[in-house]
């Protein structure tokens, strides 16, 4: 009798399972699998300030303010007033709680910012907040931030990196908050159910979320490093969505059945950095010759497959649009012109050309770009000797400013503020090891202008930015190459909008038709 019952139960269970499997596609999905190209290493921006980590963080942790679809600061956990140009008073929403049910206090919010300035934390976002003089919880649910000097970019930076976590948890774990062992607690639409460096991340809907409850019950993040394997996983339905789409491969993604490929302006700039401290690149005529010789239109088409544009200004395109709109300033341009390139080279100390070693990372897009650049430069007598290195070794050397030459760089940024980018390019501080000024260009005058820009607003900001861009265009420490779109792929079973600035993807993701 017992065996008969067991057998009957097994048959019923099998039939139930079969029926539910068969009915699956017709049901509305409330869980989603997101494919990542690299594994998130930390759910705390202080130790995981990278693309995949911040993507997961955006679903779990709210920043104090947000950016709207045009890149302007907007309230999120708090609204703000500005009592004077160098201070902000944030007032927290009433009734917000962390996902563990504890209320969010002004003390939590204040500590979440001030911890980035603590050397013991060694925050990767510390450079964003160097202008902060004091953070203090004042009054009922209010935080006052006093800056060393006025900084119009502060709110944009806060929208990127001022994530709010419980003070008690962050204080107990200055160095390992957000690690798989400690995890994190936030006020975002989801809470962490599982986090492993090897098996990925699973998030569940946060019942304490202060906003409209997300349509999804569960989001699972799977890491699939190989682009082709990731594409096949999306194609087969094993993965529902991914932001690991290289626009260069756009043609492969746009024709996947049941999958939407989505492109939107990327806040990034791809360029050549010309190390001008020594050798032929020290000669401005050589740098101008290189700028004229490189066919940016062809490189842009090669690297973006039509989802990007050749760059002429050394800023990400969304930042240019946010600052100037359609009224672009007139800056010196170095159009693709071999005759002009040869003429510049003839005026240099190397009229018959020269040979230059060019290290590059042996994986990724760098090799392809450098081959195209080498072919262009060969036409005017400059012979690039491409030297491959393993990617980790290459990045390590470049960040140490070791063996800098002509490098391909593609940097992504988080805010619409040029002050986030320009110090990387031309400040003398960034020309030191670990800085991003790989050209080594920088003068007392550029530092003075950057200083003025950091507190400039309105037309003064435009004037300062334009002056710096003009100097870069004239001195050519960099050759802008292209601005590529960001790309994502999403199963047609789901819907969401993507744009450059907002990070509400997971709160807004919902099954199609709902």
């Amino acid at each position, binding site marked *: 009798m017992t065996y008969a019952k067991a057998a009957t139960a097994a048959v019923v269970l099998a039939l139930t399972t079969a029926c539910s499997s068969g009915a699956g596609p017709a049901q509305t999905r409330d869980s989603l699998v997101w494919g990542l190209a690299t594994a998130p290493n930390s759910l705390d921006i202080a130790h995981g300030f990278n693309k995949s980590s911040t993507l997961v963080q955006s679903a779990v942790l709210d920043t104090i303010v947000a950016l709207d679809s045009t890149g302007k600061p907007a309230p999120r956990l708090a609204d703000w007033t500005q009592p004077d140009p160098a201070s902000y008073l944030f007032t927290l929403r009433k009734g917000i709680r962390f996902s563990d049910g504890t209320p969010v206090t002004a003390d939590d919010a204040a500590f979440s910012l001030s911890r980035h300035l603590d050397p013991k934390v060694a925050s990767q976002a510390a450079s964003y907040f160097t202008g902060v003089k004091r953070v203090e919880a004042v009054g009922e649910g209010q935080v006052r931030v006093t800056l060393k000097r006025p900084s119009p970019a502060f709110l944009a930076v806060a929208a990127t990196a001022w994530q709010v976590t419980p003070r008690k948890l962050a204080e107990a774990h200055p160095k390992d908050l957000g690690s798989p062992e400690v995890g994190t607690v936030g006020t975002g639409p989801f809470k962490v159910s599982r986090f492993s460096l090897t098996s990925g991340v699973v998030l569940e809907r946060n019942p304490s979320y202060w906003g409209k409850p997300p349509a999804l019950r569960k989001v699972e993040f799977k890491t699939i490093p190989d682009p082709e394997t990731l594409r096949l996983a999306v194609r087969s339905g094993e993965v529902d969505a991914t932001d690991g789409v290289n626009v260069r491969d756009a043609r492969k993604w746009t024709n996947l059945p049941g999958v939407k490929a989505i492109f939107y302006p990327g806040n990034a700039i791809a360029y050549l950095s010309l190390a001008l401290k020594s050798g032929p690149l020290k000669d401005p005529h050589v740098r101008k010759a290189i700028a004229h010789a490189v066919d940016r239109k*062809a490189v842009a088409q*090669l690297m973006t497959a039509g989802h990007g544009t050749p760059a002429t200004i050394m800023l990400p395109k969304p930042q240019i649009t946010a600052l100037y709109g359609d009224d672009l300033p007139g800056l010196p341009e170095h159009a693709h012109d071999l005759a002009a390139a040869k003429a510049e080279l003839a005026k240099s100390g190397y009229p018959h050309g020269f040979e230059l070693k060019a290290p590059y990372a*042996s994986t990724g897009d760098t*090799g392809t770009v450098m081959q*195209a650049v080498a072919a262009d430069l060969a036409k005017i007598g400059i012979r690039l000797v*491409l*030297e491959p*290195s*393993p990617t980790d070794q290459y990045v390590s050397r470049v960040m140490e400013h070791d063996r800098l030459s002509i490098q391909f760089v593609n940097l992504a940024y988080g805010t619409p503020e040029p002050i986030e980018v320009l110090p990387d390019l031309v400040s003398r501080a960034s020309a030191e090891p670990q800085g991003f000024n790989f050209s080594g260009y920088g003068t007392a005058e550029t530092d003075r202008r950057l200083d003025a820009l950091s507190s400039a607003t309105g037309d003064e900001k435009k004037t300062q930015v334009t002056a710096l861009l003009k100097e870069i265009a004239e001195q050519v420490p960099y050759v802008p190459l292209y601005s590529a779109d960001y790309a994502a792929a999403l199963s047609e079973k789901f819907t969401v909008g993507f744009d450059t600035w907002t990070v509400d993807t997971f709160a807004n993701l919902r099954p199609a038709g709902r």
Partner: protein
Amino acid sequence: MRVFLTGVLGLALVAAVAGTWLAPYDPGAQDLALGAAGPSAAHWLGTDDLGRDVLSRLLAGAGSALLWPVVVAVCTMLLSTSLGLLAGYRRGWVDAVMMRTVDLAIALPGMLVLIVVVGVLGGGYGWAVLAMAVLFTPGDIRVIRSLTLAQRELAYAEAARTLGLRPARIMFRHLLPNLAPTVVASALLSFVAALVALAGLSFLGVGLPAGTPDWGLMVEENRGLLDLNPWAAIAPAALITVVACTATLLGDRAFESLSKGGLR
């Protein structure tokens, strides 16, 4: 079969020697407007994403694809034959030291050592070839030594010693010809292993610089073009496979023929 194998290897050799001249286009010439185009009358195997002619790059790449494995095979053959004969013939402490060194060398993970030599230590492709020859040698030393141990006890070797011939003469004039089938077969297997390993290094991006016409590098650079121009990746991969299989089969045939008293 022999005609077929010889024909394939002959074609590969012609491509290796005269590939650059036979190539219809400059293998490095880019035409970005023609990127990743499929086969056509102008470009029989299409183009890669930089618009370079795939057939021309295959022909130009045959030289480095075949030359360096030949260098590895010859170096391995010379080293392993000399040291294997010495260890097997002399025995005693020479044999003991050499065999323990061989044990140690065989325990090393070959591909990892090569990646470290070429990638991390910044060695060039020449160092990779040299390191590969050194890494392939221990296995062959062990084979040659064991055969030498057996041969040195045979009557003809005993007679040579009784006649007072010098050890070097006995090893290289009397023992070596009897080991020739194995030496030749091992050399061809070393060639195959080097062909695949060097292609693997290029595939991993730690061998030759980007843009060099090389079969392994072409597979790596063009594997993203499988839906646009699959020939750009399939053709070099197929050539590596065909040449490797041909050399292996020829090695078998050479061993059989030499064992029977000479190539037929």
